[in-house]
C-alpha cells in the first residue's frame, strides 16, 4: 500500500475497468473520448504493476499472478489486440509491453501465458493480420516476434494458412512494415531448427512455390533479402533434406543463373552462394548436369570475370576457383 495517494486498485478491479473501457471504445459512441482516456490510464497502471516505475518496484509475484489470471479469464489480451488500432499511440506501446511481459512469465518450467495462447490461437492470427494495418503493424510485430520465441506458438503460426500472408506482407510498399514483416517471417523460419525443418519438409511445394514469387519480386529489397534467407536456409544442416531436394530441380538452377547476371552486385553475390551448392553437389541429376554442360564454357568464362575486385575475400576466391575447376571438369553421364 502506498503511504500517500489513492489506495491501489486490485488486479481484478484494474482488469475489469480496462475491459469496460475497451468495450466502450469498441462501441465507438459519444463517450469514446472518455473511454480512450480510461484505456490509457488503466494500461499505464497495469504496466507499472509489471515493470514498476522510477519510484516503485514491480509488484510481488502474487499480485502479478493474480493479474495474469484475470487477463486469461476475461480474454482481455485478445480484446486489446482486436482494438489496438483504436487505442492511442502511447497506449499501443503499453499493450505490447504488457503482452510481452505476461508472455515471458514462468512458473518453474511452465510458461502459463504460452499455454493460454495455445488454447486461444486467435490471438496469434489477430496479431499476424496486424500487418494489414499500417498504424499497428510494428506493435504487432514486436509481440509476434516475442511469441515466435516459443516453439509451441511458432508451430501454430507456421502451420496456419495465415502464414502464407507473410509472402504478401514482406512485399508491401511501406518499407518499415515490409522489413518488420520480413524479420518476423525470418524468425519463424529459422528460430526453432527442428520445427522449421519439419515444416519445410512437410510443406515443401507450397512454401517454395510462394518463395519463388519473392525471388522474382519487382521490389529490389524483397529480392535481395529473400535470396539471402534462401541461402541461409539451404546451407543450414538442419535443412539437409530440403537442400538436397531444392538442388535437384532444374528450374531453381535456371533462376539462380539468371540472378547471377542481375544488375545488382549484391544480388549477384547472394545468388553465387546458392548457385555453388548446385555445382558442388557430387550427385547431380541429369537435368542439372545438362544445363551446366550446355553452358560449360560460358560459365567458366563468366565466373573467371565474376567479382574479381573481391581479392580480400579469400573464402569467396577459394570457392570461385573450386567452382571453375568443377565446371571445367564436367563430363556427360555415360550410358
Amino acid at each position, binding site marked *: 500500500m502506498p503511504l500517500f495517494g489513492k489506495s491501489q486498485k486490485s488486479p481484478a478491479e484494474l482488469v475489469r475497468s480496462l475491459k469496460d473501457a475497451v468495450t466502450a471504445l469498441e462501441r465507438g459512441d459519444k463517450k469514446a473520448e472518455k473511454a480512450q482516456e480510461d484505456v490509457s490510464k488503466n494500461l499505464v497502471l497495469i504496466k507499472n504493476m509489471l515493470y514498476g516505475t522510477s519510484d516503485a518496484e514491480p509488484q510481488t509475484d502474487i499480485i502479478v499472478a493474480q493479474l495474469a489470471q484475470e487477463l486469461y479469464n476475461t480474454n482481455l489480451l485478445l480484446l486489446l489486440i482486436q482494438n489496438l488500432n483504436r487505442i492511442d499511440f502511447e497506449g499501443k506501446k503499453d499493450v505490447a509491453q504488457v503482452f510481452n511481459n505476461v508472455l515471458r512469465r*514462468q512458473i*518453474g*518450467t511452465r510458461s502459463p501465458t504460452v499455454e493460454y495462447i495455445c488454447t486461444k490461437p486467435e490471438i496469434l492470427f489477430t496479431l499476424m493480420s496486424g500487418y494489414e494495418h499500417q498504424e499497428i503493424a510494428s506493435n504487432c510485430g514486436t509481440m509476434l516476434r516475442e511469441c515466435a520465441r516459443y516453439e509451441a506458438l511458432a508451430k501454430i503460426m507456421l502451420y496456419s494458412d495465415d502464414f502464407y500472408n507473410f509472402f504478401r506482407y514482406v512485399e508491401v510498399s511501406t518499407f518499415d512494415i515490409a522489413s518488420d514483416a520480413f524479420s518476423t517471417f525470418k524468425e519463424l523460419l529459422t528460430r526453432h*531448427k*527442428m520445427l522449421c525443418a519439419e515444416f519445410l519438409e512437410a510443406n515443401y511445394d507450397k512454401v517454395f512455390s510462394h518463395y519463388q514469387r519473392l525471388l522474382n519480386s519487382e521490389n529490389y529489397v524483397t529480392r535481395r533479402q529473400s535470396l539471402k534467407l534462401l541461402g541461409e536456409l539451404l*546451407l*543450414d*544442416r*538442419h535443412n*539437409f*533434406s530440403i537442400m*538436397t531436394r531444392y538442388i535437384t530441380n532444374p528450374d531453381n538452377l535456371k533462376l539462380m543463373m539468371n540472378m547471377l547476371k542481375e544488375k545488382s552486385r549484391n544480388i549477384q553475390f547472394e545468388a553465387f552462394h546458392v548457385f555453388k*551448392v548446385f555445382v*558442388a*553437389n*557430387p*550427385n547431380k541429376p541429369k537435368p542439372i548436369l545438362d544445363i551446366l554442360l550446355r553452358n560449360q564454357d560460358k560459365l567458366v568464362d563468366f565466373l573467371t570475370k565474376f567479382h574479381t575486385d573481391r581479392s580480400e575475400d*579469400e*573464402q569467396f576466391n577459394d570457392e570461385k576457383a573450386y567452382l571453375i575447376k568443377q565446371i571445367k571438369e564436367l563430363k556427360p553421364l555415360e550410358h
Partner: protein
Amino acid sequence: MDPRMCRKISSSESLPDADNVEFEVSNVIAPQESDDNFMLEGSPEPHSVTWLHDDEIEDLDPPNFYFNRVDSADIIYRSKKKKCKMVGKYVMGDVLGEGSYGKVKEMLDSVTLCRRAVKILKKRKLRRIPNGEQNVQREIQLLRILRHKNVIELVDVIFNDEKQKMYLVMEFCVGVLQDMLESSPGKKFPQRQAHDYFTQLLDGLEYLHGQGVVHKDIKPGNLLLTLDQTLKITDFGVAEALDMFSPEDTCYTGQGSPAFQPPEIANGAEQFSGIKVDIWSSGVTLYNMTTGRYPFEGDNVYRLLEAIGRGWPAPPPAWVGASLGALLTAMLARDPALRPGVHDIRRHAWVQSRPPLEPGERLVSPRSRRSDELHNSTVIPYLVERHYPSSEEYFTERDLRHELCSGGSRTLSTAELSEGESSHKRRWHSSCGRLPSCRLT
C-alpha cells in the same frame, strides 16, 4: 616482475649501450640505501648484469645462464617504458593470457577504437606442436565463415613475414570460464550462473552444427566471456567441417582434451558421430561448472581414458538436484545414439527454468590476470606514454617496501601484491602500469 623470477646473464653476453648509463645512476642511488654496500666499495669491477623481461628470456639459448647472489638492497628498478607499439592499425596493450601457441594480448583498433584481443602465433613455436600449423590454418578458415553471437569473431589476420609471426585479431573478451572456476569457492558456479552460460553454449553449438562444424574441444577453457557476459566459443584448432553433401556427421579423428573426450574416442573407435562428441563434452563442461568435479578421473591420461572408456561416470552428487542430475546422466550416456541432441536438451526441465540464486550463493565475476574488476583498457598507458612521455623513474627495493607499508595506495595496491605472492607467476603491477624491467650493474 619479481626479482626472484629474473634471471641474470653474465657480462659476456652482449649488453646494449644504454646499460652503461643506468650503471651510473645506480651508483648514485644505491649508497643512499645501504652505506656498507659491498658490491660498490668492495669490488673494483662489479659484474655488469642485465635483468631480462620474460619475452627476452624465451629468445635466449637456455644453457648459458648462471646464477649469482645479489643482495636485495642492490637491486634498483626502472619503471618499464610503455613503448607504444603498432601492428597494422592496432595499438598493442598488455598480455591477457597465454596458450601453447603463444600469447594473447589486448589491442585497440586505432580507426574504430574497438577493443580487440590478438592471438600472436610464432611460426617457430607452432612447428614444435604436432599439426600446429595445419590446425591454425583450419581455425582461420572456419572462423572466417562463422558468424554468431556465441562464437568468437575473427576480425583480422595480419602476417609479419620478417618476424615469422601471425596475428589473429579477435573480439575482446574479459575472461575464460576455466579461470573463473578456479578462482571461485568449490571451483564451481551457482546453478543460476551455470544455466546462463549453458544455454548460450547450446545456442552456439546449434549454430555450429547447423553450419556443419563440429568443435570437438568444448571445455571451460575454450569458453570466453565478453564484458556483457556473452559467452563465446573459441579455439577451433581441432574442429572439423563436415561434408556438406553427406547426411551423416561421421568424424574420424579426435584430438580434444582427454578429460572431455567421450568413451567412443577413448576406446579408439575409427569413426563416430561428431555432433554427439560435442554433446558429451558439453555434458562434462556442465558437470564441471555445477559440481566443481569431473565425471571421470584418473591418475594419468591413460588411467583417465581407461575410466572414460568403461563409461561409468561418477553419478552427479545428490545436492545438484534431480533435474540437473538427470540431464547430466543423459548427456553422459555411453552410447552416442542415446545422448540427447541440442533440441532435446533445450526441452529438458533444468534448461527450461532458470534456477534462482540460492541464499549464500554469489555470482562469480570474470577475472583478468590484472585483478582489475573494471577491466580497464591496458592500451591507454601506452598511448599516454606515447603522447605525454614521462621522465624515466628509478626506484629501489626499499622504496617498494616503503610504499607497501604505507598502505600502497599510490602506485602499488596491497591486493595486487598479496595475490602476486600466492601465485607462482608473481608480477609487480601498479595502477600507473609500472612493470619494472630491472637492471643491475
